[in-house]
């Protein structure tokens, strides 16, 4: 920035600046000295102006996304690169005008609006274009294929053997040979698909008939009746009272949690009245 243009900084001026820094701005001195001091301090521009802030935000956002993409998927964690960048920058941007009252609110709001707009544009483009999605979010990498570890893919994603084994153990596999495919997703998570003979059998494979319970809904939560859920189940208060009476529970207030599914399966946890 050209903020220091036209100013001369002799050693005495620097000395004066330091002295005034120590004594504080409220020092009583002649108008000329005050004015000189103000002009010296003026050279320290810390906050970018509107246009500068807007362009800098765009540049920094792109640079950070590129940097995170280069870091590989393992460092991303559960967020997509653009989401990670957004959460990293917005938190910092919002805190600046919150802490420094000398900065206009717009200085924080404009970059946040710019970031949100760019993210919105990128999210729409990633939905519309497969190529763009691959550039922005990357592609899933197959790190184990037919029980064999693909070292090239691991190196490309900065994934170490220890990390791979740890992820496999978390998924319940101790040996890569048990795994048909292990895929490192763009979110950084590892999806493990075992060989068919390593998968637990399903009820269908065992030809066992299993009753479908449906989605259980919370009917009583911490002594409070959630009537809309009771209605959604097609039941009323009389039915509920009867169910409670059958379980030796005199009132709703004495229920900590009551779940009911669509086939009238009931889970009841009584409230600990001593707490």
């Amino acid at each position, binding site marked *: 920035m050209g903020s220091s243009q036209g100013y001369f900084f002799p050693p005495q001026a620097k000395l004066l600046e330091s002295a005034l820094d120590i004594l504080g701005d409220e020092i009583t001195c002649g108008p000329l000295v005050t004015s000189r001091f103000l002009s010296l301090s003026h050279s320290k521009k810390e906050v970018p*102006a509107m246009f500068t802030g807007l362009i800098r935000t765009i540049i920094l956002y792109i640079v950070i996304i590129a940097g995170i993409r280069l870091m590989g998927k393992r460092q991303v964690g559960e967020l997509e690169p653009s989401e990670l960048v957004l959460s990293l920058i917005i938190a910092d941007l919002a805190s600046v005008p919150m802490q420094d*009252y000398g900065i206009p609110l717009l200085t924080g709001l404009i970059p946040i609006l710019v970031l949100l707009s760019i993210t919105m544009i990128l999210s729409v483009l990633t939905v519309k274009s497969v190529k763009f999605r691959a550039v922005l979010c990357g592609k899933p990498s197959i790190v184990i294929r037919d029980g064999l570890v693909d070292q090239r893919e691991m190196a490309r994603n900065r994934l170490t053997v220890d990390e791979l084994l740890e992820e496999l153990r978390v998924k319940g596999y101790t040996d890569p040979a048990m795994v048909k495919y292990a895929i490192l997703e763009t979110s950084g998570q590892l999806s493990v698909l075992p060989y068919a003979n390593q998968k637990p059998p399903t009820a269908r494979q065992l030809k066992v008939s299993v009753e479908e319970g449906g989605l259980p809904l919370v009917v009583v939560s911490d002594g409070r009746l959630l009537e809309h859920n009771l209605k959604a189940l097609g039941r009323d208060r009389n039915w509920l009272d009867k169910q409670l009476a059958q379980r030796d529970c005199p009132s709703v207030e004495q229920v900590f949690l009551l779940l009911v599914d669509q086939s009238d399966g009931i889970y009841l946890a009584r409230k600990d009245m001593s707490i």
Partner: protein
Amino acid sequence: MKRLWIAVAILVLLLAGSLVNGYYVQSLTERMTERLEQAQDLAHQDQWDRAEQITQQTYEDWENHHFYLHTTLRHSDTDRISTGFRSVLQLLDQEEDAQYAAANADLVAQLELLAEMEQASLVNVL
């Protein structure tokens, strides 16, 4: 698609706003620096009252834009210029020729720097 156009519209609006802000601050400070330079010429011609009157009007003009300037620029920068105006007015009142010239030049430079900061230029971005 609607969300895309809303986001693009916000970005365009912000870009336009920042350019208009740059132009506005530039024209405001240019007008003020011209008047401050005119006041300085009058002071050199020993027309102190007229110089003070022009500087006072410029100061009032600055103060009239206080809300806008305070919401778009760093407060310490606008406060410095307000203080600069008061110093210049005091020196005009005392008819201190040399000190007034220096303080006035300083004030003009600060106004120019303020406008420069808001300009859409590569130097500012870098």
